[in-house]
């Protein structure tokens, strides 16, 4: 314990190490929070659930905080209804018996629109309860300046979705302007540069039902251009989920890969040095072969031919780096300390070969390897991202690399969805730099001269 405390005290001399430690601590804390708040199965279900799960999210919407920039005022998503779930002022539902057979069910949606940009899309989700005669709903749009625009008449059978952008008659009525623009456009503005009219809008869904018990429920979604803390992707998925879950995955993958590779390499080097002779020579030759083995292409092959699971990749990565070039570094140190007298003492009391290797040799050099180990963590995190960018990411888990890969495949940069690339990239970079800063400081604390190897 004192050794750890002394190391921490030495590290506190380096401001960069303190910053790095803070980043790592925050990441660990946040990862634990994520795993508790969104359990694994739920995360996978949400991420792989398809568009149905995210029906009410806009597509490729920017994060909400872009509105904090001066001069940016993008609309948020407005979700109203069904009646009874939202407050009475914005959704009012009245029921009026017209005749013996006909009942009016009128739902009025009222909302304020104050953004400087047009919404992305408008959809109305209708659901009916009836036995035989299908209810008829006619939709009318009321603008702040008092215009009335007829949207469509719909017969409702079970759940029906009215996508305003797909109503061709409506578009014709709006002189060929797309409905999500035409319905909000300020008539005073020029046609080439339409501006939204701010104020209170209303949508009236006037339903006629023909049975006593029949009813129509409606839910209005005006998809905005911004959503949540992280925005959404092309499948309307909330990126917050992927960015949050990416952190424990990245930490676990980086940590396990770094532990696995450095420990296995260490054991190999120790075995080689301790037994010497043919064993050592064989390990050395295998290391040379391993140096020429194209690791990434082989990983890609494994991903293509066998499995894309992140854990299979992890295993393959560790196996491929058992004989990595790190063996040479450890070997040089082992060769030096092997001559120390206490090994002779150990042998004198009858310690076996493996007892000496695991209890005498390896513990001696672990401190010198800690810095390299810490620095290696982010590089493995980036290996995961690299595989994901090559379409070989884990098929289930949301990871930062997957987000980057989706963004790349959907030409995010070309189409100006910068947030989509910048958010996972920033997280990758921050975590990478956090570990690297701590590792570099540790390096200076532990072995000021070891770099020469």
């Amino acid at each position, binding site marked *: 314990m004192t050794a750890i405390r002394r190391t921490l005290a030495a590290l506190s001399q380096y401001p*960069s190490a303190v910053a790095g430690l803070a980043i790592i601590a925050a990441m660990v804390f946040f990862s634990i929070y994520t795993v508790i708040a969104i359990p694994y199965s739920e995360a996978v279900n949400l991420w792989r659930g398809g568009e149905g799960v995210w029906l009410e999210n806009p597509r490729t919407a920017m994060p909400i905080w872009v509105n904090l920039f001066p001069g940016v005022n993008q609309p948020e998503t407005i979700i109203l209804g069904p009646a009874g779930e939202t407050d009475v002022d914005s959704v009012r539902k009245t029921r009026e018996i017209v005749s013996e057979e006909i009942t009016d069910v009128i739902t009025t949606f009222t909302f304020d629109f104050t953004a400087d940009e047009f919404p992305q899309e408008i959809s109305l989700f209708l659901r009916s309860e009836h036995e035989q005669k299908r209810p008829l709903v006619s939709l009318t749009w009321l603008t702040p300046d008092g215009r009335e625009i007829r949207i469509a008449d719909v017969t409702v059978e079970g759940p029906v979705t009215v996508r305003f952008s797909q109503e061709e008659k409506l578009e014709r009525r709006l002189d060929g302007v797309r409905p999500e623009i035409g319905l909000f456009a300020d008539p005073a503005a020029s046609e080439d540069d339409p501006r939204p009219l701010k104020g209170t809008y209303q949508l009236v869904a006037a339903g006629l039902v023909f049975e006593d018990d029949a009813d129509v429920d409606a839910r209005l979604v005006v998809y905005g251009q911004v959503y949540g803390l992280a925005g959404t992707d092309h499948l309307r998925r909330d990126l917050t989920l992927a960015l949050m879950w990416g952190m424990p995955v990245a930490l676990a993958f980086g940590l396990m890969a770094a532990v696995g590779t450095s420990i296995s390499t260490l054991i190999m080097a120790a075995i080689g040095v301790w037994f010497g002779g043919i064993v050592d020579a064989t390990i050395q030759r295998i290391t*040379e*072969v391993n*140096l*020429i*083995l*194209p*690791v*990434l*292409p*082989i990983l*890609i*092959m*494994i*991903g*293509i*031919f*066998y499995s894309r699971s992140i854990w299979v990749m992890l295993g393959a990565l560790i196996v491929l780096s058992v004989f990595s*070039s790190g063996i040479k570094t450890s070997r040089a140190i082992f060769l030096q300390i092997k001559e120390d007298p206490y090994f002779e003492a150990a042998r004198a009391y009858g310690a076996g070969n493996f007892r000496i290797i695991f209890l005498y040799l390896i513990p001696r050099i672990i401190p010198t390897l800690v810095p390299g180990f810490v*620095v290696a963590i*982010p*590089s493995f995190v*980036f290996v995961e*991202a*690299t595989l994901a*960018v*090559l*379409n*070989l990411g884990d098929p289930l888990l949301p990871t930062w690399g997957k987000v*980057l890969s989706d963004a*790349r495949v959907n030409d995010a*940069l*070309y189409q*100006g969805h*910068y947030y989509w*690339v*910048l958010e996972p*990239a920033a997280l*990758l*970079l921050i975590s*990478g*730099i956090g*570990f*690297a*800063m701590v*590792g*570099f400081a540790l390096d200076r604390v532990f072995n000021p*001269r070891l*770099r*020469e190897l």
Partner: protein
Amino acid sequence: MTDAALPLQPGAESGERQQTQSTLARVVHYTGLRMVALFVTVLIGVYLTILIANMGGHVDDIRRNYIREQVAISLGFDPDIKNMTAEERREHAEKLVALQEKRMGLDQPFLLRSFRFLLGAMTLNLGWADNMSSDSGSRQVRNIILERLPATILLFSTTFFLSFFVQLFVSLYLSRNYGSLIDRVIVALAPTSAAPSWFYGLFFILLFAALLGWFPFGGLVSAPPPDTTTGYALSVLNHMVLPVTATFLSSIFLGIYGSRTFFLIFSNADYVDMARAKGLPDRVIERRYILRPTMPTIVTGLALSIIGLWFGSIVLETIFNWPGLGRLFYLAANIFETAVIVGSTVIYAYLLGITVFFLDIVYALIDPRVKVGGNSGGQS
């Protein structure tokens, strides 16, 4: 200062002129040995690749299914088939499949097949690709791969030489100005090398292609390609700027940090102090007293960094749409073009082998231990 590394040679030879002949012989001997060793290494590496690629007969399955599909299609066009009964039809198909499998050598035991495949792989004689073709229209795997090689080599030799010389001179400069502001800035920037080159590539595309529009998003030349040779070269150069800078930036700070620390350790050695005390000029001290003993290690570090560079190329080329090996590999991977995947892996093994070999030669030229032929044999 432009070629501090080169004057090593005359200086070294003048001291041992009478030994020149044997030095050359030793270097050749050493190089020959290394070449054989590396060839064997590449052979083993490629064999392992084949084993992995075909673990559990995966590749064979893919091929078998392909044969079955082909046979089924060809039977569809066969006029005789209509007169056969279902039983006869099935038998006929099985016979054709067996014939094809025999032709492809699939009926032989795996060990034999793997060696045959190894021979084919080493000579890049991997047969025809199913769904890919080279730009010139050939479907031979060898042509597809070799066509892409120059683009990759162009990109990576440029990056390599750029970062090697910048790293060498900047780290020498920093070791001379230890603790200065620029030194501290570069040391502070070293952790940024944790990110691979494609990662910087993404940012560069965002900044210089999408936002500023100074450079193209990717590709090798603009479309349509310029008619004149100069125009073509300029266009290629323009397309190279972003990928080269991305690779350069991703490795340079860590490289400088490493060799700077290394130079620092050596420039505090007693014999360097001695040389300073003698009043030798800084340049001579750098060349003869610092660079010379550190060169082999620097070169070794370089070998490792180049290997990293080759692998980074797969993603970098994909991101930048650079028509090289890496992108070919990516495309082949996405459509399960097994032959091209194995072929590209083999080429990567070759490239790594050749890289290590060239570095070995350089190593032999600059490492006095190789030149003198080890500790014992050097006196004869």
